[in-house]
């Protein structure tokens, strides 16, 4: 017995023509053999026609795609291993694409061998889905076709996001790391400065320094009559050592040699500069006083004692050198009395240094003792160790010294160029000295 079933909705209708081949009672109305299935979609000139294979593929694809719309995860629209004859893809905006392969749908004469792509709006798609659902609900028609609604297995959801997409964050992360590494690689490697080799270099330099070097021993020190005046041109400790050594043997600047050199220099200096300097080394009383006033500085520089020992030695060595660094005695100069003016000068000195430097100096902290006269001019400076001496060129100090400035009343300051490029200025003898 032939029969027809129709599932009609505003935008879509399914019309099934088929036969009942089971004559047993209760089953005579069941359509069990499909002859032709027709799918009409509003707005489409021709209808889709096909046999059982077409219809089974269509209802499966539609049913699965309905779940995809609801959950957002792509559902497999065919049973694994079977060809994809009918499938639906999401399209732009409100549209979806129903794609039917030509081999299973009967297109009449208009077929050109290409797959048919039908653009469905959301409402059309829903009507198609609803027609299919009504067919599934109708147990009298092709009961072997089931909707097979089931949640998507985890493995399908994972594959939903392609590997390339999932790899993007990792690739970006690794790429950033590589880029950063390369950028850092382009930066110059910081120069490693070894104080021993520095002293060595200084010694070699001193060897070729011409004879105007007052510490070479061939010429007596100019003392107070020197045109350079109070700003006694003195090489800080190491260079003085080297100079003194130059007359004997310039080979290495090992610690032993240094010590010897200090002694040498002291001897030389004692000979020539007694008038000029109060030889503190020979005056234990004043040294004690110095220590007493220096308690502030001690706390700031743990190695200050070392400095001071060297300083004392250097103080006596009033040997002049090519640079215009000054060697100070270890006593405070005749001081500006007012605490306020010490503080003003402190600020002024810092301001001067900051304004005159070309750029902040980075690297190991270096300290200088800088003497400033009452009228605010810098009369001299003294590096307090070899690394400070090596870094003189990186500070604005040499250019700031004013010749012939009055040193009647002056204040000594400790100037520290810290490793982060900050200039710190504080009174050499501590704030409490001026209170």
């Amino acid at each position, binding site marked *: 017995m*032939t*029969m*027809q*079933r*129709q*599932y*009609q909705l505003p935008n879509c209708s399914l019309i099934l023509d088929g036969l009942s081949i089971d004559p047993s009672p209760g089953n005579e109305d069941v359509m069990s053999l499909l002859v032709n299935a027709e799918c009409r979609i509003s707005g489409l000139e021709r209808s889709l026609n096909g046999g059982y294979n077409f219809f089974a593929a269509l209802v499966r694809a539609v049913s699965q795609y*309905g*779940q995809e*719309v*609801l*959950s*957002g*995860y792509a*559902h497999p629209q065919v049973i694994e291993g079977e060809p994809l004859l009918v499938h639906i893809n999401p399209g732009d*905006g*409100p*549209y979806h694409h129903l794609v039917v392969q030509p081999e299973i749908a009967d297109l009449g004469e208009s077929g050109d061998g290409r797959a048919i792509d039908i653009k469905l*709006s*959301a*409402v059309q798609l*829903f009507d198609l*889905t*609803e027609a299919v*659902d*009504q*067919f*599934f*609900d*109708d147990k*009298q028609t092709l009961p072997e076709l089931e*909707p097979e*609604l*089931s*949640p*998507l*297995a*985890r493995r*399908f*959801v*994972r594959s*939903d996001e392609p590997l390339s997409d999932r790899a993007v964050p990792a690739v970006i992360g690794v790429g950033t790391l590589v880029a950063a590494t390369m950028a850092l690689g382009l930066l110059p490697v910081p120069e490693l400065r070894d104080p021993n080799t520095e002293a060595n270099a200084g010694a070699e330099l001193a060897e070729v320094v011409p004879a105007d070097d007052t510490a070479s021993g061939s010429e007596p020190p100019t003392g107070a009559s020197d045109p350079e005046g109070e700003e006694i041109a003195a090489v800080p400790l190491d260079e003085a050592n080297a100079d003194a050594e130059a007359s004997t043997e310039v080979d290495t600047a090992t610690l032993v040699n240094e010590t010897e050199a200090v002694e040498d220099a002291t001897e030389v200096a004692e000979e020539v500069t007694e008038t000029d300097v109060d030889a503190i080394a020979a005056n234990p009383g004043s040294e004690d006083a110095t220590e007493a006033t220096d308690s502030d500085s001690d706390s700031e520089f743990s190695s200050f004692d070392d400095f001071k020992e060297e300083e004392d030695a250097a103080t006596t060595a009033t040997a002049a050198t090519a640079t215009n660094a000054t060697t100070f005695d270890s006593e405070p100069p005749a001081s500006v009395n007012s605490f306020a003016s010490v503080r003003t000068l402190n600020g002024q000195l810092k301001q001067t240094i900051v304004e005159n430097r070309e750029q902040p100096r980075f690297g190991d902290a270096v300290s200088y003792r800088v003497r400033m006269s009452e009228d605010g001019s810098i009369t001299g400076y003294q590096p307090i160790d070899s690394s400070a001496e090596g870094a003189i060129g990186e500070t604005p100090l040499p250019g700031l010294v004013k010749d012939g400035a009055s040193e009647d009343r002056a204040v000594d300051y400790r100037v520290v160029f810290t490793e982060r490029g900050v200039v710190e200025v504080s009174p050499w003898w501590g704030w409490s000295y001026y209170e």
Partner: protein
Amino acid sequence: MQVQSPPNTEPPSLNLIDQLSIPEGLPSECSRRAKTQIDLLLLAIEALDLGGAEAMLASAKELGLDEVVRGRVNLWLLRSSNPLRRFSQRQPMSLEEGKALVLITCFLARRLTVLIRQLLLGYQQLSDQGLSFDHHFRLSDYLARFRSHFRARMNANRSGVIAYSTDEKLNELAIELLTKLLFCTGTEGAERLWISLFDGEVA
């Protein structure tokens, strides 16, 4: 040759909640995504129908679900289990409660079928012509209401909510939810929605 029209949808029976199947391998409670989806769909219904919140309670009674959804506070607590909510309750939602909310959603969506279809057709026409949503009064009304509901109730600091920070993104979400609601109105709407909530949750 005989012509038959499809059978009519049966009226909801008393044990409606048992009509939704529980497939194998389902977790013992609703997932984060399920809780979020249900709440967003109910939010869309509220944006479509001003009396939506009241209608939810009424339909719970009508469907015989007042054993599961016990009054206003309970409904609020259930909806607040959405992790995107400003006052998210972090409480589990049992499968029974999830089913009840799915049934309420589909029941209300079915009542709003005509409006949902109108709005989707309008959206389709506007996007065909490249016009803004302002040209369709009902549609822009729905979108504006959805946006304000969403912003008032969701926690703007959650990454899931930050993704919807612009009007355009929220409009897209509102249209997407409208399409989902349309699919809820179908013969198998409740079953489809229920099953779809567990996509990717089973082994």
